């Protein structure tokens, strides 16, 4: 493999890793900050206020 294709492959696998991190991150934040299910809302209540999520 030439250096150029190796770099290209590395960049592409980095991009996939970034997309994975962004997706998991957004999923976690949706649960902790935005989800309105009553059980989740009550459990996360104090933390949402403390972190200034618009919560209810």
């Amino acid at each position, binding site marked *: 493999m030439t250096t150029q294709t190796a770099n290209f492959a*590395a*960049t592409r*696998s*980095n991009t*996939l*890793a*970034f*997309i*994975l*991190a*962004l997706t*998991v*991150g*957004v*999923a*976690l*934040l949706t*649960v*902790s*900050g*935005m989800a*309105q299910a009553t059980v989740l809302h009550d*459990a*996360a209540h*104090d*933390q*949402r*206020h*403390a*972190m*200034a*999520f*618009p*919560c*209810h």
Partner: protein
Amino acid sequence: MTKNLLSSAVFAGLIAGLIAALLQFVFVIPLLLEGELYETGARLHFATDGTPQSERGAPGLGGEWGRHLMTIGFNLVTYAGYGLLMVAAMGLARDHRGTPITAQNGIIWGLAGFIAVQLAPAVGLPPELPGTPAAELAPRQIWWMGTILATLVGLALIAFGRGMMMHFLGLIVILAPQLIGAPHLDTFWGVAPPELSAEFVTHSLGFAAVGWVTLGYFCALFMAQGEDS
């Protein structure tokens, strides 16, 4: 790369979340519990012998350990979530702009995250003490999310854009949601003393800044260490 990215974010999120939760229990949750006394009517402002005086004093944290454990748990989840977004941004900046990932740079990343995710939306929608009536939830969530995204784009234009025009454009993008304005009620309905609300806002923002800087520092530190080994 993937493993280093995810583990750096999660471990940094655990450390920052734990530190943030401890600071919240000392500085923020007591004010929140004091606000709840007004929300439930256990205390009434402007009602003590007809004068605008209310006794200052937060109730103790009490014995609701389940509730407090949940607060710690969700802090860990939230900071791990922000950490994952942050390491992806750090990686993108390095791959496309050559910005090195160091613990010192991590502090700047953390401050930028604080400005975009906490400070900018709080300019329009101050963190709310329980019992503060506010406009409908959906428009507030939309404005909140839009402000965070606009501020992130604006900061990125200022940090990575080439040329004065890009930096100026970044400033405009950051100001835009503030000029549009956050959704608010036409009337003031707050039942808690304004001093209590003000302290809650400054405490929650101040200690969120500590959490964010800690997050940025450890995300970058762990990323750099993982790549050296």
